[in-house]
């Protein structure tokens, strides 16, 4: 699909998703629908969908190891092998998975192939390319911190880690000096980093021709959805404030199965809530499911022990074979008549059959 159409399409879908709760709450006052029903439905879709996806992956056979070429595998004791890149046991696999999940090791290895014409002829280069890794790391960790900070709405009493995160995240007190106008002293760094990383990831997609070519609405849509989510959150925290004590009452109502919708929560909150509901409901059906999928990547989570352990293919089933001996048995006379060489001569056959008494 043409990338402009993809972007327009995703943009329009996200705009509609913003408009639905806006109209629904501002014009029709459907607060219970958007405050309680939609979030519950979205959570149900998320949890059932994720479990179904993981069970689905779990049921597919993974008979063989997929050694990647990232490291020397274990062979002879005096040949040095790469304990983490190509582990032979579970310990190495665990470390490799930690690197993958926490530090995005595979992305870190990203290189860029470049074809250049120099004065003395063409040249192929593998360029060091860490920006994608950096932006991805920035995005995921910001999102995680923001998600965890939201636990002040989800839990009562508020657990200690939330306070620690808030302190760390707001420690520059940016609101006091450089960016006054944001109206609160603790401007959270992760809010800014998230938007920055998302913007970079979006621009990168349309800037690099190859990436642009392979990008689909399924790539732009989640980016735009999360951008809209972040934007409504930032608006709500720094500019169009809502009564967040009432918001907490609503959230606790959801988590204790005693849903209530307190009076006087601004529309922007319902837009924010609707967007996150759509995001989590979209998870199991989209590339976002890599949140669970990363743990089941066969190239990362299996020890490279093919030389030590026999792995049997479950699809191997007894194939009906017709060996050459059987073939010759069947066609020997015809073969001899046609002057083709045979392995056993007919006299011998007769002798044998006399001995065993199988044939006349």
């Amino acid at each position, binding site marked *: 699909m043409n990338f402009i159409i993809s972007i327009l399409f995703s943009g329009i879908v996200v705009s509609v998703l913003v408009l639905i709760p806006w109209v629904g709450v501002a014009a029709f006052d459907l607060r219970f629908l958007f405050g309680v029903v939609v979030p519950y439905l979205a959570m149900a879709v998320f*949890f059932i969908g994720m*479990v179904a996806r993981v069970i689905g992956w779990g049921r597919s056979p993974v*008979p063989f190891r997929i050694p990647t070429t990232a490291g020397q595998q274990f062979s002879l004791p005096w040949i040095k092998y790469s304990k983490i890149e190509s582990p032979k046991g579970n310990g190495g696999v665990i470390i490799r998975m930690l690197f993958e999940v926490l530090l995005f090791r595979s992305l870190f290895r990203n290189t860029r192939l470049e074809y250049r014409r120099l004065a003395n002829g063409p040249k192929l280069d593998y360029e060091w390319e860490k920006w994608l890794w950096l932006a991805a790391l920035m995005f995921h960790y910001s999102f995680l911190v923001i998600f965890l900070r939201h636990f002040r709405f*989800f839990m009562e009493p508020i657990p200690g880690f939330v306070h620690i995160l808030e302190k760390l995240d707001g420690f520059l007190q940016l*609101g006091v000096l450089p960016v006054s106008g944001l*109206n*609160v002293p603790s401007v959270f760094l992760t809010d800014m980093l998230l938007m920055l990383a998302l913007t970079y990831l979006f621009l990168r997609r349309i800037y690099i021709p190859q990436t642009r070519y392979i990008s689909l609405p399924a790539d732009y849509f989640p980016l735009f959805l999360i951008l809209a989510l972040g934007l409504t959150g930032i608006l709500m925290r720094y500019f169009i*404030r809502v009564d967040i*004590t009432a918001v907490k009452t609503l959230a606790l109502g959801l988590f*204790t199965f005693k849903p209530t919708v307190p009076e006087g929560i601004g529309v922007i909150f319902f837009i924010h809530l609707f967007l996150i509901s759509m995001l989590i409901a979209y998870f199991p059906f989209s590339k976002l499911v890599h949140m669970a999928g990363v743990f089941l990547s066969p190239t990362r989570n299996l020890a490279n022990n093919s030389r030590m352990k026999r792995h049997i293919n479950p699809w191997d089933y007894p194939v009906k074979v017709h060996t050459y001996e059987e073939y010759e048995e069947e066609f020997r006379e015809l073969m001899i008549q046609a002057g083709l060489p045979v392995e056993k001569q007919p006299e011998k056959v007769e002798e044998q059959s006399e001995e065993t008494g199988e044939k006349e």
Partner: protein
Amino acid sequence: MYDGGKIIVGLIIGLGLLLSPFLYNAGKATKAPEPQLTPKAKEAKVCVANTNFMTTKHMQLLDRWRDEVVREGKRYYKSPEGKVYYKSLQVTCLRCHSNKTKFCDECHNYMGVEPFCWECHIAPKEKE
């Protein structure tokens, strides 16, 4: 299932983490904060701006007041009703809301905000 046991264990841990708000709050009775007004505030009836504005945006107002006082020297604020207030955290807000622990902190504890203002500004002494 290949490595079925491990996958199920991982799945349960993941679900447990994501469902933790449900588990944490289960069976707990939570109550929304009820900020209490002092007799003095009750007598005044109105805050420096309308209640909805104060509930949602008092931190923005304070932020603006601070900037205007400290940076521009403008010490008086005219409320929408035409009343004039001295822009001050201690002298205005907390004269009326002198029950800080039962008013400001009531909400702030519920939401887990600890305004660092009181490192310099002096909170009113409360009886009891």
